[in-house]
């Protein structure tokens, strides 16, 4: 189908120009277009009917991965670039795990990390992964003011984020902690489908090889991207043994709300949390130990 009438299309070339255009509209009347792989679905089904589309493609500052001074990823950095970025190792390797399996090649050639996080669809990978990695979201407002929002505060629930109506997400920054590893894995009925359940785990090891810091997040559940604090607590001090991971995932299963739908019932989702948890834990520990 076809989008409803769009009165105006703008393609700003600077950040300031972009936020200025948006601020000229009532909230919701103008939207930023990043890769468009979600927004176009919403526009074509006419769930979203913007008066103005502000296309971010020409703003160079929004693009690319930089590890010069901590890890920064521009909001308009595409999945294809993240999937192939060798610098995303160890603590941030989960970004690659996710980006390699979002949608399909064509989607990965257009879709962006910032677009996905700002859309915050209920079942999607990037919100859960950036949450699991503890990303910081950098926002710019029309007055030129910037603010940094922790991932825990950025995602407010499906389709809602802390981004203000007239704010632009410019980039995300990530910690590059040593002796750390992360991993993400999802399951869907067909290959690379939206997650029925996905698990992201990031951990740091102490000198004895035990977990000294953990973040865990889930995708695919009705709450949208969410932390799994019970699992995190249970994994602290773990050496990565299957038993310790199993205990942690059981704690997760006990503490989160799973739902039933046509792809899987709630019990099966719980089982996926258990099995995916084991897989991502094995990978994350290996990465933290420098084995991968």
């Amino acid at each position: 189908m076809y989008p409803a009438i769009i009165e105006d299309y703008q393609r700003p070339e600077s950040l300031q120009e972009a936020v200025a255009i948006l601020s000229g509209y009532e909230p919701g009347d103008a939207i930023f277009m990043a890769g468009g792989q979600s927004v176009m679905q919403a526009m074509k089904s006419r769930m979203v009917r913007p008066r103005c589309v502000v296309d971010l493609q020409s703003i160079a500052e929004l693009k690319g991965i930089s590890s010069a001074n901590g890890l920064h990823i521009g909001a308009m950095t595409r999945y294809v670039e993240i999937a192939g970025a060798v610098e995303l190792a160890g603590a941030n390797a989960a970004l690659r795990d996710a980006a390699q399996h979002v949608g399909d090649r064509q989607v990965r050639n257009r879709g962006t990390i910032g677009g996905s996080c700002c859309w915050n669809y209920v079942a999607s990978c990037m919100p859960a992964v950036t949450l699991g990695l503890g990303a910081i979201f950098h926002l710019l407002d029309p007055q030129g003011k910037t603010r940094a929002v922790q991932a825990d505060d950025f995602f407010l629930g499906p389709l809602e984020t802390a981004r203000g109506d007239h704010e632009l997400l410019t980039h995300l920054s990530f910690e590059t902690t040593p002796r750390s590893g992360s991993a993400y894995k999802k399951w869907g009925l067909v290959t690379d489908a939206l997650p029925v359940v996905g698990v992201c785990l990031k951990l740091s090891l102490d000198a004895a090889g035990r977990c000294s810091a953990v973040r865990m997040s889930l995708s695919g559940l009705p709450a949208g991207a969410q932390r799994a604090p019970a699992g995190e607590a249970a994994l602290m001090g773990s050496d990565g043994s299957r038993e310790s991971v199993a205990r942690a995932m059981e704690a997760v299963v006990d503490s989160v709300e799973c739902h039933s739908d046509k792809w899987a019932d709630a019990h099966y989702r719980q089982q996926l949390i258990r099995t995916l948890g084991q897989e991502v834990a094995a990978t994350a520990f290996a990465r933290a130990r420098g084995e991968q």
Partner: protein
Amino acid sequence: MELKDQIRINAPRERVFAALNDPAILKQAIPGCESLEATSPTDFTAVVAARIGPLAARFTGSVSLADIEAPVRYTLSGEGKGGPAGFAKVKASVELEEDGAATLLGYSVKADIGGKLGQLGGSIVDRTAQKLAGEFFQQFDALIAAPAEATDDAGDSKPVVMAQPPARGVGPVWWGVAAMIALLLAWMALK
């Protein structure tokens, strides 16, 4: 979709029932409510501008009341139309029970959505509806419980919003409307 819960409101039963019949309160408590009008003693229409994240829509709902047994219980049925998006149908019952100075408000809602709204609503319908119902109650509780708390010297006082006496016969429209908005939002919340 079915929602069922019981919540405790810090106000006596009569007062809760009256507030549920007060369009001004309801209008404030319903997220995004633009208007709330009685078209007959038992029929009401509401226009709600709902918004979630990047999505926005205006939604027209109509609600009819039945089995009114003040201040104890009533049932309602409602229908909301989202234009080409589809429709929502709601059947609900509410029961108020005294719990000391407070009131236990029990409700059960069955809602069905149709058209694109339902097809694209997917599994997040319940969640969104619950969230909105939660928002409503939070606001509702804040609106009607505040005076009682103030007289109890129970810490920070909240502004008293109850501005006018309940209009006669205006029923608890929030039900249908809240659930319908929830459904509409669920529809929009899909990619």
